[in-house]
């Protein structure tokens, strides 16, 4: 065994494999990460530096680009809107999805599997095809151009994925724990609040992370369902305030970096959960 390995290591095929491997790894690293690093460095430059020396480091790191970004685009208000929408949607969606997932995973009733299949097949529907009905529904509820309109819409869009993730997690919790609790006189609701929910926290956190990132980054429906600054989110802000930044490009880059910070932050702390959530079969089917 040891011998074959050392033999293989020096064969031309192996040298080719190793060289190719590193070229491939570094090629993709350059494409995915280098533009982001360039963006962040450029956001600290003066406009003159940005246009004349695109690859150099800034002589003085222009922190005021970030201050200007906040002042010019009323970014504070948009940032607050995004935070409200993302947090409320995550909480509401997690509550609704976990209740449904609890009933489906812990109880037996007719149509239970059919119901689960129908809900999960929601992930296959192209949401952009539903622009007209969503616009009509949200307007009809009197929620056009309001934050609750976005919160309800995002909560609903994410029901299939969060029911899938939470149901998958709850199914792994042994039933014996609940049986003991039933003997002790636990009601249906108490089994949910006192036993299954606390044990499902890792699953809830995974699902919540997905929903939070979705809400923070969502653009199409934020554009369709809002029109005033009072209810617009950050993503729309950086898209539509481009004209205000026409003479100050690097401040716009600073605004873009500001919108990326929260999800990158979440990703740094939660990447194991995000990756395990995806591999638990976010696409199994």
């Amino acid at each position: 065994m040891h011998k074959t390995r050392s033999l293989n290591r020096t064969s031309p095929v192996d040298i080719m494999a190793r060289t190719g491997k590193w070229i491939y790894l570094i090629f993709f690293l350059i494409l995915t990460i280098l533009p982001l690093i360039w963006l962040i460095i450029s956001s600290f430059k003066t406009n003159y530096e940005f246009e004349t020396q695109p690859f150099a480091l800034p002589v003085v790191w222009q922190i005021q680009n970030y201050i200007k970004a906040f002042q010019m685009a009323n970014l504070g208000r948009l940032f607050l809107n995004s935070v409200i929408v993302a947090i409320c949607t995550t909480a509401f969606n997690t509550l609704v999805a976990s209740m449904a997932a609890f009933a489906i995973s812990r109880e037996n009733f007719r149509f239970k599997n059919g119901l689960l299949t129908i809900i999960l097949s929601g992930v296959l529907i192209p949401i952009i095809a539903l622009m007209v009905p969503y616009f009509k529904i949200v307007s009809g509820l009197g929620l056009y151009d309001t934050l609750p309109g976005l919160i309800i819409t995002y909560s609903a869009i994410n029901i299939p994925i969060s029911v899938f993730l939470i149901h998958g997690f709850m199914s792994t919790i042994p039933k014996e724990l609940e049986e003991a609790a039933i003997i002790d006189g636990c009601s249906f609701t108490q089994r949910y609040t006192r036993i299954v929910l606390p044990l499902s926290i890792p699953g809830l956190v995974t699902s919540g992370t997905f929903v939070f990132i979705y809400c923070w980054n969502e653009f199409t429906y934020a554009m369709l369902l809002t029109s005033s600054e009072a209810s617009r989110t950050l993503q729309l802000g950086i898209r539509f305030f481009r004209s205000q930044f026409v003479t100050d490009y690097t401040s716009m880059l600073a605004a873009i970096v500001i919108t990326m910070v929260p999800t990158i932050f979440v990703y740094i702390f939660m990447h194991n959960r995000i990756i395990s959530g995806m591999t638990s079969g976010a696409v199994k089917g």
Partner: protein
Amino acid sequence: MRVNKNWKQIILFLLPALILFGVYFIYPLGFVIVTSFSKWNGISAPVFHGFKNYIELFQDETFRLSMRNNIVWALVLGFVQIPLAAVMAMILARKPKGWKFFRTAYFLPNVISQVALAMMWLAIYNAEFGILNNLLEMMGFEGLTRNWLGNMDTAFPAVLVQQVFYIGYFMVVILASRMGIPDSYYEAAEIDGANVFQQEFYITLPMLKPILITTMTLALAYGMRHFESTYLMTNGGPAHSTSVMGILLYRNLGALNYGESNAIGAILIVFGGATIALIRWLFSRNLDADDGIQ
């Protein structure tokens, strides 16, 4: 089956999710399909006129071009992005130095919004100060510099390239499947003298077939409904060369042509469903025969 004694609570617990799902998935699906057969401005009542919207759409050159572009998107994502992601998964599964760092880095763009990525690439492709042109000049290829997104010949490939190398999402899914293949298979092959390429071709590929079909199906479906990054970077221009069906749907909505909008929506839904069904059907026999790692 006996009626569950907790049936009242079960219904109560299911109700909020069912209401949201019904209002946002089931009702809109029926709504889109029914009103796609009507002329409707969203204010007065819809007037039904059969297949007129569909006939007009398929006669419209811009729509046909947009549909063709969506098909190109589907093929590029399914048959270029998935193979790229699969090769990366094969490399990372052998745990080269720093593989966890690479995995984290390649997935990073997936947590950043399409708006931020599109704005970043607008700056990269920019004709005057974009780094792509700067880079080409530095390397002595002044002749190649151009207005990448403003040029009929380069705009569509430029928008495709922006997305196709973000392989993180599919790579992570395929990698998880690849990690499920026992090491002993590869050790046995190595003793028999198989080199790494042969091992990947004769062990990994057949074992990964189910997940490759699943991810490919998803990638094709995503391509058929592609909208956001194109809308953000070119809005379909120049001269409709990058247009996709979603952009026409959104424009018709803005022009209060709700009937046409919903006809495009119905086409998106049917095409998406047909893509998924076709792939399933094509591979269903093979899937049953193989015991792949799912």
